[in-house]
């Protein structure tokens, strides 16, 4: 390209600051929970106090009689399709005679203010008959309560290696715990339709479910992008969406609903708890010969995304390793536990904890260095994925991530007696002499974007005007920084500095797909790149030039048409629908080209453990991650550090404690999220081998940090203590054995 005019500023590769940074630090950024409208009512929800119960009586008259109460609605009031759900519409909008999980919404209220709404909920006359909940996965399997069984049969079923290790592994229920709870504002349009601002990861998918239940035409529901306080999967399935719209349409007034933290815990899907059995066989030199696994995932009461989570757990059950003989059965079970669905890592987190624990166990059995064992079996470009047989055609630097993380310097031994650097923290339980340091490694592979023949696409429109470029998209920013990266892609592709991201509602543009599966940088980013390149071509044609910059169109180093002149006859615009390479449905043996792209990551955790008290401080987590290209290095680092923290949380503290389906710790007092004093230092090596279809070669980066960080931390605790630790989170009593 001829160098003309000023270089594009804020393009790819720069640590461009977030456009929403200033509004967020000043408190001026509007989240869904901050929105108001003239004449607005407040919604509230009546929930089942039991994990399973028959609804005997529900009388709303006393609640309706309270002054200031405008509507009290139940399942009978659902105007259209009585159920919703992303894959299978099996969840009643409100309890339909039997509550199937603790906290399931049974009735909704709209009132003048939050206090009146709460009092109305309390005034609803309701009687339940508690039923025996099904809470055990093995029992659910026996009863045939299976959302999906995903098998993998590859290679010789009778093959056997001389060295065998087996293990049982368990994962507790992790919550996404985004800081912003579920919130929505529905505003009736006066013509039977409704505008909705709501916490969401995928506006178009929500929209397709909402209009059906409201019994209106699709265009009569417009779901708008809204400020979202974190998601991590919790918002891929709907929460209060239909409820708040029903109340708005019934009352003819805007209605706002915001869940409090106690409601939020049962009010969204969680990471699937897992029970897993794995058997690894190898030759004496460490070459894997066969892997068998049985994976049970607790899907809770309704389908949600369980079938896809099961698929991920099964297809990544072996990890980034070569092995020819694989036999895996994965089951998603229906129980009366809280519903499970998407959470960062999406099934791979569970499998990775098991396969990496197994690799360490196998290395010990073989008296081999655990990293050497992993490298000996490392999956590379050109190899078949051990489970599905798909030939990996994209770059897959498995050996590289292992070598790079192993080569990073270890943190110096810590001699400090400062409690803030010791297990137990300011509780002053522990002196340095009580501490043993441990180091552990883990490696993971994750698919990027949607798999198994899903028609996965993202739409974007780029419009060039005299004022600069606009990028129109329905892709949801949940905090990860997509708005920054999309603008950078557009700037570089166009050559124009001034780029604004214009969030579009469901009526204004087609779907961008879900903000999940590490997909938006590649998918909506891909769409923006395609559209921006097309607009640049249009500009060059119109200006008969060879370059476009913020000044205008250039020919042979001279400005021939300013941006003003270029857009005089109207803006230049291009709309595109971007698709990734097609994937297939699995055959009956789970074989096929099921995935569009892959990313690998390796983690090394260093922990200080007080073995006598079972207390842990995660000192440092280092990682080498396969990211294709760093579009925004600061943002990449932020995603990796944040993802690691969630993996550390699962390793040592985060768990919803269940008792017959009831969450015993549905509060921030007792569902423990890591604090500043629990945060490890993080050092990062980025491996940049371009993805063939990501914009400028970039890969999705959101999930890998959460996946192998958990087993790395547990491996480090094992290294420090010698304990088996087959369950996460690791609790103090698991370490002390008391």
């Amino acid at each position, binding site marked *: 390209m001829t160098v003309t005019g000023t270089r594009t500023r804020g393009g790819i590769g720069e640590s461009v600051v977030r456009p929403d940074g200033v509004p967020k630090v000043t408190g001026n950024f509007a989240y869904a929970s901050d929105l108001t409208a003239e004449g607005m009512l407040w919604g509230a929800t009546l929930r089942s106090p039991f994990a399973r119960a028959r609804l005997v009586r529900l009388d709303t008259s006393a609640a309706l009689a309270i002054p200031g109460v405008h509507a009290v609605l139940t399942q009978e009031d659902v105007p259209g399709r009585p159920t919703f759900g992303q894959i299978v519409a099996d969840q009643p909008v409100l309890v339909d005679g039997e509550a199937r999980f603790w906290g399931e919404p049974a009735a909704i209220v709209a009132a003048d203010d939050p206090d009146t709404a*709460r009092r109305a909920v309390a005034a609803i006359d309701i009687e339940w008959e508690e039923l025996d909940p099904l809470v055990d996965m093995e029992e659910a399997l026996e009863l045939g309560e299976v959302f999906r069984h995903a098998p993998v049969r590859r290679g010789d079923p009778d093959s056997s290696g001389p060295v065998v290790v087996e293990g049982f592994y368990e994962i507790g229920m992790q919550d996404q715990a985004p800081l912003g709870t579920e919130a929505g504002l529905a505003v009736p349009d006066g013509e039977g339709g409704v505008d909705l601002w709501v916490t969401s990861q995928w506006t178009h998918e929500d929209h397709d479910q909402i209009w059906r239940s409201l019994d209106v035409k699709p265009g009569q529901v417009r779901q708008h992008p809204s400020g979202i306080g974190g998601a991590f999967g919790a918002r891929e399935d709907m929460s209060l969406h239909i409820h708040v719209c029903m109340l708005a349409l019934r009352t003819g007034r805007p209605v706002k609903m915001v869940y*409090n933290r*106690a409601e939020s815990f049962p009010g969204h899907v969680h990471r699937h708890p897992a029970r897993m059995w794995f058997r690894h066989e190898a030759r004496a030199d460490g070459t894997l010969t066969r892997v068998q696994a049985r994976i049970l995932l607790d899907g809770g009461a309704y389908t949600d995304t369980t079938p896809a989570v099961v698929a991920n757990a099964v297809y990544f059950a072996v990890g980034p390793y070569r092995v020819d003989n694989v036999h895996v059965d994965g089951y998603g079970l229906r129980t009366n536990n809280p519903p499970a669905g998407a959470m960062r890592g999406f099934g791979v987190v569970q499998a990775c904890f098991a396969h990496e624990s197994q690799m360490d166990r196998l290395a010990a059995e073989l008296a081999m260095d655990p990293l050497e064992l992993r490298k000996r079996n490392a999956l590379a470009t050109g190899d078949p994925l051990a489970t599905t047989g798909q030939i990996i055609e994209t770059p897959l630097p498995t050996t590289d991530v292992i070598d790079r993380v192993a080569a990073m310097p270890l943190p110096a031994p810590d001699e400090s007696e400062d409690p*803030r650097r010791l*297990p*137990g*923290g*300011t*509780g*002053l*339980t*522990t*002196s340095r002499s*009580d501490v043993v340091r441990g180091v552990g490694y883990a490696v993971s592979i994750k698919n990027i974007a949607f798999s198994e023949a899903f028609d996965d696409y993202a739409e974007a429109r780029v419009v060039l005007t005299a004022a600069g470029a606009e990028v129109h998209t329905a892709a949801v920013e949940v905090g990860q920084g997509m708005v920054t990266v999309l603008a950078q892609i557009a700037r570089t592709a166009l050559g124009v500095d001034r780029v604004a991201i214009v969030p579009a509602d469901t009526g204004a543009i087609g779907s961008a797909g879900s903000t999940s599966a590490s997909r938006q940088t590649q998918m909506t980013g891909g769409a923006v790149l395609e559209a921006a390149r097309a607009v640049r071509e249009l500009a060059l044609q119109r200006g008969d030039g060879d370059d476009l910059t913020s000044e205008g169109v250039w020919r042979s180093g001279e400005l021939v048409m300013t941006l003003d002149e270029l857009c005089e006859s109207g803006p230049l615009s291009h709309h595109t629908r971007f698709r990734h390479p097609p994937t297939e449905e699995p055959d009956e043996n789970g074989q096929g080209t099921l995935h569009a792209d892959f990313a690998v990551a390796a983690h090394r955790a260093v922990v200080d453990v007080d073995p*006598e*008290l*079972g*207390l842990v*401080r995660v000192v440092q987590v280092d990682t080498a991650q396969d990211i294709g290209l760093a579009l925004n290095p600061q943002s990449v680092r932020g995603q990796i550090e944040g993802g690691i923290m969630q993996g550390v949380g699962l390793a*040592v*503290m985060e768990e919803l*404690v269940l*008792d017959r389906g009831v969450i*015993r*710790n549905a509060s921030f*007092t*007792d569902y*423990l999220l*890591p*604090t*500043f*004093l*629990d945060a490890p230092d993080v050092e990062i090596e980025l491996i940049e081998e371009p993805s063939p279809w990501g914009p400028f070669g970039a890969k999705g980066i959101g999930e890998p940090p959460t996946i192998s960080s958990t087993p790395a931390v547990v491996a480090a605790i094992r290294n420090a203590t010698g304990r088996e630790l087959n369950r996460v989170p690791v*609790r*103090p*009593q698991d370490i*002390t054995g*008391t």
Partner: protein
Amino acid sequence: MEIVRPTDLSGALEALDSAPDATVLAGGTDLMVEINFGHRHPEHIVAVRRVEELTELNGRIGACVTWARLEQGPYRALAQAARTVGSPQIRAAGTIGGNLGTASPAGDGLPFLAALDAEIELHSAARVRRLRWDEFLTGPKQNALAPGELIHSVVLPDEIPTRQEFGKVGVRNAMVISAVMVCVARFDDGRTRVAVGSAGPTTLRVRAAEEMISAESSPGESALAEFQRLVSEGVNPITDHRSTADYRRHAAGVVARRLLERCL
């Protein structure tokens, strides 16, 4: 009356006298949680944080002295405990009187009061009385406060143990409710007290361990081990969503031994 905000003690006692069912509000860090989640709906509130007499820290500890102030001393183990109360924001508002009013077995300040055999001074319009800590704390979230009565202050004995250490076990390294916590206090003559929180219906003292170790002028390894064993044996914890009875029992002993070692 809905809320009164007295600025002196007599004003507070008058308000409580005229509405004995009123809820006393100090730092709000416990009461407001109950209110926010709809568990309590007080109709009359006496907000006492402006009452100067209650904020005195001079030989006695006024009920409205905040954790943030106690973190700065003068009592070592209480300062250590104060540093673990909730978050810096909680410590800026929450008070020692609140710990007594709530009377949770997990009250972080209570093991220190138990170890020192503190008395709690209660005032009402009619009388002033003092109760020893274990007469005041009558059960989990239960205390001996009578209607119309106000927690005025904590009165510590004249003789303060020269050695005192506090330790709290939680699953997180900050801002955590204890799985178990211990305060050990030792006088120069070897008399030793050990108080444990979150290990029974109320904060408790382990007398058998105290007697054994008080007799040891310079305890060796075996005495320390015996002390640990007696503490573990002498507590009465439960299993709940925060921890297990067995772990609490074990950890109480370990922490008590470690704190005693620091006192020697």
